[in-house]
């Protein structure tokens, strides 16, 4: 990575193929964690919007399941085609590093979105929202839902290996230590593996185990919907509340029936939109991936490349948006 003081290691000189000429670069690819997931599909809508504005083509290519080795195989075939840029939502932050490096060596602009590759394996990460912001907003919502007396809360995460989930949970645990939230007690963290059935069962087990449970925070779109349904099915609406990160279409029902009165999320379409602009800026040489550079991303305006000790080079989309019964019908994705 350019931010690194050491020169990049180039393994073999003949190996570096003709680097795609930035001027006539047109083929970009948006890679989700997996296909058939509405969250990412919505991202693709934003990406296509950006592509239209930039006059480039953005392919939407993903693996069938959210699995690192499958994603690597896919990326290898994309690298082989000498595309101009890749915007990847990584299934494994470390395992993709060698592949990301190979792509950069081949002269491909590599940005990540939604879920990052470790800094060594990409040029830029497009950060949906600050870690801090996402963690904090969820605790704030939980606190509101639990009411002035507070009470027991639990977290239902995706897989125990998902890097962004773990980072958020860490922040949440930190925020909970603040005196303001002293009346909230985090009783357990469980994992639903982003599997609807498993998440549902885990949520159910939570009520059985903790009869006084007030709030379930599920920082995952699958988990939050499954938990809200579990609450509804168990006739616990009004007793147990669900919040976390979700998509409007999946949560509409539960926002209205009161099982999950509010939840947060950024707009994945905007996230992908920004990613395409960033990827294009990198590929055309408008930015070189170093801290402090700025570029304009269409309707979203101007963004600055920031450096972060943990995240490496990144661009921040903005604060997460809170959906509730008043605004949910304004969204359809």
């Amino acid at each position, binding site marked *: 990575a350019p931010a690194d003081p050491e020169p990049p290691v180039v393994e073999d000189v003949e190996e570096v193929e003709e680097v795609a000429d930035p001027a006539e670069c047109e083929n970009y690819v948006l890679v989700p964690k997996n*296909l*058939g*997931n*509405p969250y990412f*599909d919505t991202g693709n809508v934003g990406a296509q919007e950006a592509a239209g504005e930039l006059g480039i083509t953005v392919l939407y290519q993903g693996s*069938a*399941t959210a699995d690192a080795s499958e994603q690597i195989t896919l990326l290898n075939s994309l690298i082989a085609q000498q595309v101009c840029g890749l915007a990847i939502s990584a299934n494994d932050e470390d395992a993709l590093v060698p592949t990301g490096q190979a792509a950069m060596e081949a002269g491909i602009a590599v940005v990540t979105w939604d879920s990052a590759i470790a800094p060594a394996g990409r040029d830029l990460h497009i950060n949906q929202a600050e870690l801090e912001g996402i963690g904090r907003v969820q605790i704030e919502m939980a606190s509101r839902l639990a009411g002035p007396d507070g009470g027991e809360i639990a977290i239902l995460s995706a897989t*125990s290996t998902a890097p962004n989930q773990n980072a958020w949970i860490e922040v949440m645990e930190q925020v909970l230590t603040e005196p303001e939230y002293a009346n909230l007690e985090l009783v*357990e*963290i*469980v*994992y639903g593996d982003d*599997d*609807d*059935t498993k998440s*549902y*069962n*885990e949520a*159910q*087990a939570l009520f*059985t*185990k903790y009869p006084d449970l007030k709030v379930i925070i599920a920082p995952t779109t699958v988990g939050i*919907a*499954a938990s809200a*349904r579990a609450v509804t*099915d168990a006739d616990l609406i009004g007793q147990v509340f669900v919040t976390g990160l979700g998509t409007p*279409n*999946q949560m*509409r*029902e*539960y926002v*209205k029936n009161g099982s999950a009165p509010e939840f947060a999320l950024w707009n994945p379409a905007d996230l992908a939109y920004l990613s395409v602009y960033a990827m294009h800026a990198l590929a055309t040489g408008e930015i070189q991936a170093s801290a402090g550079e700025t570029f304009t991303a269409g309707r979203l305006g101007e963004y600055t490349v920031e450096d972060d000790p943990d995240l490496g080079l990144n661009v921040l989309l903005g604060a997460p948006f809170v959906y509730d019964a008043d605004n949910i019908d304004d969204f359809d994705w």
Partner: protein
Amino acid sequence: MTTQISRRTTPRINVWDLLARFREVGIIVFILLLGAVVTLRAPSFLTVNNFRDILMNISILAIVALGQTIVILTKGIDLSVSSMIGLVAMMVGFVMRQYPETPIFLIVLLGMALGTIAGSFNSIIITFGKVPPIIATLGTLSVYRGLVFFYSGGTWVNSFELPQSIKMLSKGRLFGVPNLILIALFISIIVYLFLKFTRTGRNIYAVGSNVEAAEYAGIRPQRIIFLVYLISGLLSGIGAVLWVSRFESAQTNTALGFELQTVTAAVIGGVSISGGVGTVTGVVLGAILLGIIQNALTLVRISPFWQLAAQGLLILIAVVLDKVIYTRVARN
């Protein structure tokens, strides 16, 4: 003949004999042991509500596992059940989204029909194409899953798009018992009667036990095999409708990986992979055991990181214990 003396004393009826005839001893013993241990550590295990949850959670599994069992009885295996569920769930979901007024029994019928058609495709490949079942269904596992994506274009059917009627199909209650559990019970009884008291049911055992001999005995094995994949499809179709009903959505990855669970339920229920052996009671108990294991592990607060390991270990212990008890019983 004068030299003819009975060469075996008439079989004495004793406890061992009775146990030997009742194949499910091993699994029941294990369920009781596990239940006792869990109750000691988490008394909330032994509540009506908890048992209702467990039964709700395994109802669909039990239904599809019964289809799987019928297939395994003929020495086959149906790995495509999960994808059939995914496909049928998606198609049913689309219909319900488009025509929310459709009466629920028509939806169930539709699910059954679609499942049967998907199953018949397996049947054709296996009987006419002579493709070994594991390969055929490994193939259709990915083909049907691919069709789900193609069909839905990657979109999901969400809860708010589904009418109340389908949601109530599983959640409505009769005498306080959720419909889903009653449906599973009803289907189990039907399958039990079918396997035990119809010629076709018995022929399924015969074919699984010895295909050649079945042919000699005037059974048409190919027809039986055709039928079992049809039944597996049918039950998967029902499972799919119930899935949509219970999970209030149809997703591209609905039931992903479910096939291994159905096989697991069947084998820990004493169904022999080499065909010819297995009972409905066993499979239902197997599904219940799986449900209990899952429920218990979350209740007794085993670290979530070790839960999967514990689950695998318990399954292993269950099959080993079953084997040991059964051979002990059979020997006596």
